[in-house]
């Protein structure tokens, strides 16, 4: 059984594999966020996909503001908070808590993607 902190140190592609193994979770994401259907990628859950849909998913569960104030270095705090976001997300998607592993992987890439995006934005503006 993975701990959230362990998942947070995993590479992006590994996290994506965990998400994609759970067809119930991916199905629920596509069902609840149908606008993501317009986006056909060579792979799904890429940084571009996250940039387009992460804010929307996090906003829908009322967590966007929290995540925007984090820095990735606050790993322990973020780890605890990620567990809560996963629980909110699964509840929103009406999925059972048994999907925690894939759910946590998804939330981690959403948060990571938003962080990277913010950094890029800052670099661009400076």
């Amino acid at each position, binding site marked *: 059984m993975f701990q959230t902190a362990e998942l947070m140190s995993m590479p992006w592609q590994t996290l994506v*594999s965990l998400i994609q193994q759970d067809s119930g979770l991916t199905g629920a994401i596509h*069902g609840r966020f149908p606008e993501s*259907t317009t986006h*056909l*990628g060579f792979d799904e859950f890429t940084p571009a996909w996250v*940039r387009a849909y992460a804010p929307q998913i996090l906003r829908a569960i009322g967590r*966007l503001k929290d995540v925007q104030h984090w820095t990735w270095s606050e790993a322990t705090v973020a780890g605890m908070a990620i567990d809560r976001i996963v629980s909110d997300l699964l509840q929103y998607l009406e999925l059972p808590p048994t999907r925690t592993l894939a759910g946590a992987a998804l939330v981690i890439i959403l948060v990571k993607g938003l962080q990277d995006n913010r950094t890029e934005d800052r670099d661009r503006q400076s």
Partner: protein
Amino acid sequence: MVHLDLVSLALQIDLTLEELLQANLYSKHACRDSKRFGLLRQIAHERAHLVSFLGSDLAKVHRSILDLQLKLAQCILWEVHRSRLIEKVTVPIVDSRGRMFPNALSPHPKLKVGVAAARYRELDALNQFLVGYAPDCEWKALLRAYGDLISVANGSHASEPTPACHQFCEIGSPDRPLETFCFMSEHHYSLIAPQICNALEEPSCSVPILPKIQVHDVPGSESPMLLSSRSVLEGVAVISELMSMREHDSAWTFSARMRMPVTYRSALVYCLHCINHVSGRRYSQEHLFSGALPDWVPLTMGAMLDLALQIEAPESLFGNHTALIEKCPAWRLLLVGANLKAREIPLLNPGATFDGPEIRAWLRNAANKMGCHSQQKPRTAHLPWPRMEITGPEVFAHLTLAAATVRDRHSLLYLTGRAELAPGDWLDFTACETRDCQQIFFGEDHVQARRDFLGAQEARHYSVPALVFGRHWDRCWQRRRVQTPQNHSAYIGRQLSDALEWGAAPFATSPATKPAFRDEQILVREEFNHVLGGGRARE
């Protein structure tokens, strides 16, 4: 890194122009560098998506859905605009569940907005059904949404679906007799039921939204899986990769494709199963991705998948085609497979090639068996684009005609871009530099027309849903924020007014009165406001 946007019909590469130039993709040595080669393959994959989508009427149905959704969003805007009780317009106007934000104070617009938002969501579900995964709805909602499309296409009216046991929706118009349109006919059901798990697992659920399959003769793919339209689209693109890869390094495809999630692979697995069933072989995905299969196998798979995409647009609905599953690539693939397994459609001969006469004859015969009338006569329309100036709105018609014509002329080779084409036969790619990514699209001589089209698609199909439903909100504002850091409410007001103006004709009481939203009316909801670059809702 590369993705296709089905709305703007452009490929987007997440690289700056400098990075893209450094990658030097068109160098002869690009194939020797794994990173550059990977990028080339991704572009080829997305290109195959684009041409296969445009070459099928699926693109037209998708466009009809987008257009109808835009009309519904305009209806909502109009209701909000004409309500004299509103002092502030809170955007987004409706939330994801169809509840209105405090814009409408009287019950009348609230009711109308609720109905329009519900129809909008049903069209979303239909879109999912046709190009995505399993929608979260009942088949009746899909039937109602398709009935809406037909009503628009034919100027007719569609009734509510009748009780579940009939699974029908009646369609008629003043000059046509009432016709019956169903989700799935008895004939279809008897053909399909033995192939799907849904019928066995859930006997009470006589009509599953999408088929769940389980195959036992494709080694390594024995688990049950859902056959979705997206898996058909992915299957076509992967087969085109394999066709292109034959002269390159197949090891790359093998490793990249074995990681492909099962939701993408299910259509390919189903095709292999049908071929194994008829030929008595045990071909697996490993054989497929490593290039170890004889050519006729991927060729048959490509032909099956291509045929599954060839749906007919709503305007041709009246007539013999009255089941919704015939419009869905996932279900159509199951019908093709059922015909193949029943030997109504033969396997391709070992000597067949990707654009030879055998494949053309096979596609025509198979289309005939499937009852696809539009596929039986190849389209040979003269393509006027390279010889005349076109404007933005004509772009979609030209793109679909170009792709369909080239498909008819070159069979499956059209997917790879390697077909030998007549001058003016094909529209090449053009790169368009944007701030943070490269957009690639067809039409090298008509960059301005394509840019106009792109801009109009962004404004209509992304900005309007963003302002009405909060969809694509971040996508719209991420680019806009840099360009218009000040006075967001003025910008939003202008966008809302433009959206009303596009659809003003059916609503306007007087042609002289241009409907408009005033800057001071606009209030952005707090949880959406941060994207605009600050904590203040209005400037």
